[in-house]
């Protein structure tokens, strides 16, 4: 009997119930879209922030950046240490391998021009295809690391053997244009290069010229060696634990150490890179690593607050409508009461009707919400939003609570009705 009544009520008031279902669907789709976008926005923005370039610098143990500062370079005993090219793939096998976005090795090569003036020449990967021991493969290198570079002409490819890329300052000093040739002397041999591209990086790199890594190794006679690696990794903002760990990982208790090791702190990723590269020291580039953390935190908080606002809006909208639509059924309820229905029966009847309608609406809304989330993801980040199944129970719970909460004032109103008055037509 109960279910026949529910079914009857649902079918009789098709239009009204459809409206409730529609509103619930809207609210649910809003909740689904916002929660999904919110959960994924941090990750997406983090990837965007990678345009700031590498946040970790890997150098051989003992070598320092003296070359950059004093021009104390090759042969002085401090920077004659190297990393092995064959070990570079290991960077993609660490615990946080998934968080390593890109990396590029560099080999500084001693070189001078015909007139004897020394130049900054380095070999690197431009877009290098790498087969990993795990069976995966990836493409990485400068082209994806230095997205902000303004390149005239073309990027090099790793197969080019007699072409180079010059920085704007380098090109100006040597009067070079795209297509020009330049002779470079390295270890008593002369090589001739054609300028394939000129880049403007707006930094010290403009004074340099780049050739493919293999060519630089051949010129300097350092086969299979690189002098440093820049790594771009997705990291978690630093906290007290990671700061202590960065100073000395051994000072942590075993439990703290595990937490630290298994969180994508920049210091933990550095530590893991040191484990897989022989004699290496990884250093976070604080300018990039720290700022990323700050911006990420702000973005996530902002999205969270917007989500809360939209959820509150959706909740009020739904409960308003539920209240309004339950209240108008006063004459029907009055009749039931006159026939001797108990309050509990009436409440259950109304709640069941609303809950069934609501759940149908919520299911439709969930799928619409996924659609909205994907529209946002596609148009803002050019990539799909990662849909998390955990959102389903969350949305279902929210909708349920909102519907019940919205029905309570209406049910109280219905229970207080006097059947005689209602049926009389007041």
């Amino acid at each position, binding site marked *: 009997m109960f279910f026949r009544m529910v079914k009857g009520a649902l079918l009789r008031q098709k239009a*009204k119930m459809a*409206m409730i279902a*529609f*509103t619930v669907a*809207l*609210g649910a789709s809003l909740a689904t*879209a*916002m929660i999904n*976008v919110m959960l994924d*926005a941090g990750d997406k*923005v983090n990837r*965007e*922030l990678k*345009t*700031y*370039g590498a946040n970790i610098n890997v150098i051989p143990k003992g070598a*320092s*950046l003296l070359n950059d*500062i004093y021009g104390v370079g090759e042969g002085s005993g401090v920077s004659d240490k190297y990393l092995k090219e064959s070990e570079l793939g290991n960077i993609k096998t660490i615990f946080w391998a998934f968080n390593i976005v890109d990396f590029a090795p560099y080999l500084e090569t001693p070189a001078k021009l015909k007139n004897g003036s020394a130049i900054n020449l380095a070999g690197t990967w431009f877009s290098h295809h790498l087969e990993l021991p795990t069976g995966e493969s990836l493409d990485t290198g400068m082209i994806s690391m230095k997205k*902000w570079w*303004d390149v005239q002409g073309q990027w090099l490819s790793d197969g080019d053997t007699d072409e180079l890329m010059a920085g704007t300052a380098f090109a100006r000093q040597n009067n070079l244009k795209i297509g020009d040739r330049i002779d470079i002397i390295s270890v008593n041999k002369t090589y001739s290069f054609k300028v394939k591209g000129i880049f403007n*990086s*707006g*930094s010290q790199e403009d004074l340099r010229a780049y050739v493919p890594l293999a060519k630089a190794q051949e010129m300097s006679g350092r086969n299979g060696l690189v002098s440093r690696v820049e790594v771009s990794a997705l990291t978690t903002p630093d906290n007290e634990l990671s700061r202590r760990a960065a*100073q000395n990982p051994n000072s942590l208790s075993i439990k703290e150490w595990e937490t630290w090791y298994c969180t994508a702190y920049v210091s933990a990723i550095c530590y893991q890179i040191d484990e897989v590269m022989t004699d290496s020291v990884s*250093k*976070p580039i*604080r*300018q990039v690593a*720290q*700022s990323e953390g*700050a*911006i990420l935190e*702000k*973005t996530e*908080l*902002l*999205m969270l*607050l*917007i989500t809360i*606002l*939209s959820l*509150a*809006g*959706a909740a*009020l*909208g*739904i409960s*308003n*409508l539920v*209240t*309004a*639509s339950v*209240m*108008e059924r006063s004459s029907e309820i009055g009749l039931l009461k006159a026939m001797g229905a108990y309050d509990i029966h009436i409440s259950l009847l109304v709640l069941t009707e609303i809950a069934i309608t609501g759940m149908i609406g919520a299911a439709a809304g969930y799928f619409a919400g996924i659609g909205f989330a994907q*529209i*946002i993801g596609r148009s*803002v*980040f050019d990539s799909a939003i990662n849909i998390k199944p955990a959102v389903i129970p969350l949305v279902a719970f929210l909708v349920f609570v909102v519907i019940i909460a919205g029905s309570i004032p209406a049910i109280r109103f219905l229970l207080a009705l006097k059947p005689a008055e209602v049926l009389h*037509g007041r």
Partner: protein
Amino acid sequence: MKMKRYAFYLKMVTSSLIRRRSRMFVALLAVAVGATILSGLITIYYDIPRQMGKEFRSYGANLIFIPSEDKSYMDADSLKKAVSYLSPDDIVGVTPYRYKTVKINEQPFMAAGADLAQAAKTSPFWYVSGRWPQKEGEALIGQEVADIIRLNAGSQFFITGMTANNKPFKRGFTVSGIVQTGGSEEAFIFMSLADFENMAGGDNAIDIAECSVSVSAAELDRVSKIINENVEGVTARPVKRISESEGTVLKKLQSLVYLVTVVILLLTMICVATTMMAAVAERRREIGLKKALGATNAAIVAEFIGEDVFLGIFGGLLGAAFGFVFAQAVSINVFARSITFQPLLAPITVFASIIITAAACFIPVRRAAEIDPAIVLRGE
């Protein structure tokens, strides 16, 4: 006669609102929530570039001043002149630096004199263990320097070298803190400009100045061009990596909030509209009675629209106020800064609420008005 009709119309609208207090309250609430979301989100949307722009300054300097090509240093006055081309509100910090190669224990190091209070602003990413120098004779040393000569916070060391006039000097310093940056700064020794001048001589000469300004990349390019043309001896150069990337990321963030705003607004408006439709639908009996008494369809539609305009005005005003409160709360929680009130937004919110409520009622009222009063009144 005309006056009387207006008075009667107003009386009908207001008494209808007052008589059905609780229902109208529900409708008002719906409109107010919609308006709150509208005004709150739009305020946030407009404020994001400004607020986030400030956050992005944690990447450090996005503009540097260097001496023009024919000079080896710039003087403090021309730097001041160059800085005056930037709007003071946008400047986060300007740090002049002087560099000199010095020796500690006969090993070469680079000493840098800087306005340290400003350096803390232009380079907020520096991680200092210990503290920044506060007194005369204190220095901040890079991690690498500390490793090489084994210094800790509190240790003493002596710097030797040649002054600008080629006279040898020797001065003692106390380490106040050790700085980690992951960059070349770790190989420097930082001290205040006054200490640097006392030590190495040479007044008002600046090698380089870092500047952190919260403006867009295009604006930065424009200002640098003006400075390069008008200030002699100083070349302004935007730091491309910082300014360009900031532009890309900010644009993405803003379009994210924009899309989210549009989606939320759309859904909220539909929510408001369905609530209003439900409110009209339950008044069919009243409409029927009025028609039976001789009201024209137009008169009925006009009455309902009138009620909705009232709802729209009050809901919109409430929403504009709450929306600002909400945007303010978000801004203070997220960015720890307050936002400016956009006066234009209040009338826009009210206007939008009126349009939405009126449009939401128009269709159901029209349909209700076309119904035969006899059927409605009989209770079908």
